[in-house]
């Protein structure tokens, strides 16, 4: 479900808190999933989601409908995620925490196909775990572009708009991200 930007602006002028609550109900899950895929840690993702929505609430009046609401929200999420990743990299005490990916499995929503056997599910889970661990090793911009495009399903032009980059830069970022992921994964499989 998407919210029409112009209607939302009208709602915003009438009742700011109602407009905010509508954003939480429509985009809360999307933002949380993006945060999960950028932090790879449940508690961090929850804190980051809260930071994103606090930033949304504080800058809610600045939305003028120039971009779609989802692009505006993704931009805020991306900026907050960048700050968070940098902070996490600096804070080496948390280095071991980021590699914990148990939440992928503990989350009941993991099996989506309902056709897989338990063995196939296990293989799929291990693959996702490896992929996430590899994405974690990418440079900030590559990681964000890859997450937005491959995991969140944003188009190249949407990623360019969210990250405030040209289309060519995004293409190049995604190409390099994929090449680097292949190298990282090959190394991990060899080990």
């Amino acid at each position, binding site marked *: 479900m998407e919210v029409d930007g112009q209607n939302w602006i009208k709602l915003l002028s009438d009742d*700011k*808190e109602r407009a*905010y*609550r509508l954003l*939480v109900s429509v985009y*809360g*899950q999307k933002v*949380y*999933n993006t945060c*999960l*895929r950028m932090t790879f840690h449940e508690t961090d993702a*929850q804190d980051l*989601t*809260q930071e994103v*929505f*606090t930033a949304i*609430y*504080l800058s809610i009046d600045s939305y003028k409908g120039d971009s779609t609401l989802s692009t505006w929200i993704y931009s805020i999420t991306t900026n907050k995620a960048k700050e968070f990743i940098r902070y996490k990299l600096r804070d080496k005490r948390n280095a071991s925490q980021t590699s914990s990916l148990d*939440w992928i499995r503990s*989350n*009941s*929503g*993991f*099996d*989506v*196909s309902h056709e897989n056997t338990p063995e196939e599910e296990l293989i*799929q889970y291990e*693959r*996702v775990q*490896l*992929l996430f661990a*590899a994405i974690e090793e990418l440079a900030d911009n590559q990681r964000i572009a890859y997450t937005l495009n*491959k*995991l969140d399903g944003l188009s190249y032009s949407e990623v360019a708009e969210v990250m405030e980059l040209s289309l060519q830069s995004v293409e190049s970022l995604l190409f390099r991200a*994929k090449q680097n*992921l*292949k190298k990282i*994964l*090959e190394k991990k*499989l*060899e080990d």
Partner: protein
Amino acid sequence: MDEMRNEVEEILRSAENLPNFQIPDQLVHRLMQVPQNAMNEITTLPSRTRWMLVAGIASMVILNSLIMLYYQNNSGSGTELTDVYFSYLNQL
């Protein structure tokens, strides 16, 4: 080698089947509280900061009053001082 490349491709493809994780209820509750918390953060300064602000303003007022009193009591001394200074320069 081909086997490894195939596995790498499979791992990269696993991103396509990623499920959407449910947002926890307690997080939704936290998000709904954001407007209240944000307003509290803006309107309520810590009491220590408030007292420091008050003390700062008070000391500025006292300092300015003292300086004004000093200049009122010593009016004319400025010209005496400049006279001494210029006569000293003339001697040089």
